[in-house]
């Protein structure tokens, strides 16, 4: 019977990904834009913000576009859903997860008349663009704030998977923290999920119990932040959307994803025929993401954080300037050099001083 349960478990998770929240194309002339989301629209994080972006696109372009959105699509279902979108007439399709990147490459090659855009990816093609935001810039600001706020000099980090996006975020938090106080340390818990409120809360509990008093999170739910609020004297940062209201006394700032303007410009490009495959990696200056209002901070802390944020946005401060040394002591780049975008995207090592095991 145990075997049956195992099978049913996989079956259920595959089937659970078929909930379709579709809006059918109304006008034939309008551009139909497809969206495939990895999570439910109600995850209050990553997928929610893509949905917000889609709605902004619709409101700006009005009757020139319609959109069809399919949410909570598990990667094994991707091909079927993508093919269905092509059949129903979508000519521009956004696939909003790195888990979709390889299948998107495949489906894009099979459907050359459709424009594809993959949120995070590693390569473009004739009809495939990739886009992402430089969230690490927000992480640097978080590091600076965390170093100011922490009394135990220990930051906790609720991490997801050991992929470059998460690894360079942890490195950058510490870069920011060390710029204030080189004695800051970090503890990391990997929960092997992007979204699991219960486990996120457990991870935050473990970190706080071990002395962390500022919690950073890479996971999508407000659970770690909410737990910080409950415990008191612990601070945290919101992820993907403004989470101030979940922790009015513990919230410092949130990283707010904002895809709307990008979606508007890309849909407009398809409409006027100027769409070209591109590799867009927008920072704070691009508007692809922003930081929520700083809360629970002294005026001095706010002005410092604002100054750092503006410097990052203006490009005068760069978190990946050398010297950069790996945890094992080897030098990556000396002072005076800077990591290239490809090097940042491939970062699979922690910096010296970050004593964290990869799971």
């Amino acid at each position, binding site marked *: *019977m145990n075997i049956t349960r195992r099978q*049913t478990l996989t079956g259920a998770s595959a089937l659970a990904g078929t909930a379709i929240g579709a809006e059918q194309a109304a006008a034939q002339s309008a551009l139909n834009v497809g969206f495939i989301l990895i999570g439910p629209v*109600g995850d209050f994080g990553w997928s929610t913000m893509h949905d917000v972006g889609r709605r902004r696109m619709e409101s700006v372009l009005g009757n020139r576009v319609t959109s069809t959105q399919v949410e909570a699509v598990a990667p094994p279902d991707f091909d079927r859903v993508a093919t269905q979108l092509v059949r129903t007439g979508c000519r521009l399709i956004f696939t909003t997860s790195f888990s979709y990147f390889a299948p998107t490459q495949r489906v894009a090659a099979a459907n050359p008349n459709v424009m594809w855009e993959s949120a995070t990816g590693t390569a473009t093609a004739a009809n495939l663009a990739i886009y992402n935001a430089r969230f690490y810039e927000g992480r640097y600001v978080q590091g600076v704030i965390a170093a100011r706020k922490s009394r135990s000099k220990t930051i906790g980090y609720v991490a997801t998977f050991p992929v470059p996006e998460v690894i360079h975020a942890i490195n950058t938090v510490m870069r920011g923290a060390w710029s204030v106080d080189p004695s800051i340390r970090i503890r990391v818990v*990997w929960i092997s999920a992007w*979204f*699991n409120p219960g486990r996120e809360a457990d991870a935050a509990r*473990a970190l706080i119990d071990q002395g962390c008093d500022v919690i950073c999170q890479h996971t999508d739910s407000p659970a770690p932040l909410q737990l910080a609020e409950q415990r008191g004297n612990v601070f945290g940062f919101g992820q993907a959307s403004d989470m101030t209201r979940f922790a009015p006394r513990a919230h410092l700032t949130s990283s707010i994803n904002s895809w709307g303007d990008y979606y508007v410009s890309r849909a407009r490009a398809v409409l006027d025929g100027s769409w070209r495959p591109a590799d867009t990696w927008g920072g704070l200056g691009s508007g692809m993401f922003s930081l929520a209002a700083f809360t629970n901070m002294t005026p001095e802390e706010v002005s410092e954080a604002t100054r750092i944020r503006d410097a990052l946005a203006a490009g005068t401060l760069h978190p990946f300037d050398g010297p950069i040394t790996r945890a094992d002591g080897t030098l990556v780049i000396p002072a005076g050099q800077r990591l290239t975008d490809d090097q940042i995207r491939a970062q699979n090592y922690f910096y010296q001083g970050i004593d*964290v*095991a990869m799971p």
Partner: protein
Amino acid sequence: MTLLEAIILTVITASTPLLIAAIGELVVERAGVLNLGVEGMMIIGAAAGIAAAITTGNSWFGVLVAILAGMALSLVFAALVLGLAANQVAAGLALAILGLGLSGVIGAPFVGVQREGIGKIEIPVLSDIPFIGEILFHQDLFVYASVALTAGVWWFLTRTRAGLVLRACGENHAAAHALGYRVLRIRLLAILFGGGCAGLAGAYLSLVYTPFWTSGMTSGRGWIALAIVVFASWLPWRAAVGAYLFGGLTILQLHAQSAGVPLPSQVMAALPYLLTIIVLVVIMRARRGGAAGPACLGTPFVPDR
């Protein structure tokens, strides 16, 4: 508060929803019905619970609604497997998927609404005892309820006539029927109890553990509850051991990571399931090939008319 105390407190909160759901499912399975839809009933409870709590402003009303919602969903299952003698595995799976989808609809208006969780209660005097006081006498009511449920179910199954009849339905429904017991009615009650427990476990998640609503927030805890029933070899106290073991391993693994102990977290995460398989093997060996668990588990019963 020492680190050990903190760890034990966290383990208790992590294990409580597992225990509540597992005890409910244990009763269902002892009556001979396999309901794989625990995940669905749990999340319906979570969604309905917080929806009712936010709408009325009363968390305890939310708990009540969560229990009723779990029961209502289990009634759908009962209609299929008892009324129509449908395949229990298929119906249970359908229930899990239905619950996940339906909970999203119920919870949609409440995404992102912040709400104060149900707090802990402090038992005067006793909670002042160092160490033990904080752990045993300063918990939320759900924790006490889970212990009471375990004790109650143990007492019911082993010490009462009704419990004996329920077990008879699970071991040999034809014989129970021949003796004049209403197998279907007893199974219906067991299924409703299981649904109520799953709903209660869901309420714990959305009203105490992480007091907000997001879709899919049970994240597989219903499936773990099912594994615990097997691990417990269908005995209530062992289910408690199983729930605390499963919960404990999860928490210890997080602490080990945070402390920088180089334990492969994947192995730790797989350990509960590995233990479940080992227990199952041991039971099968001991029974020399007999059925693991109630003999009529999963077999539909159609009374001769």
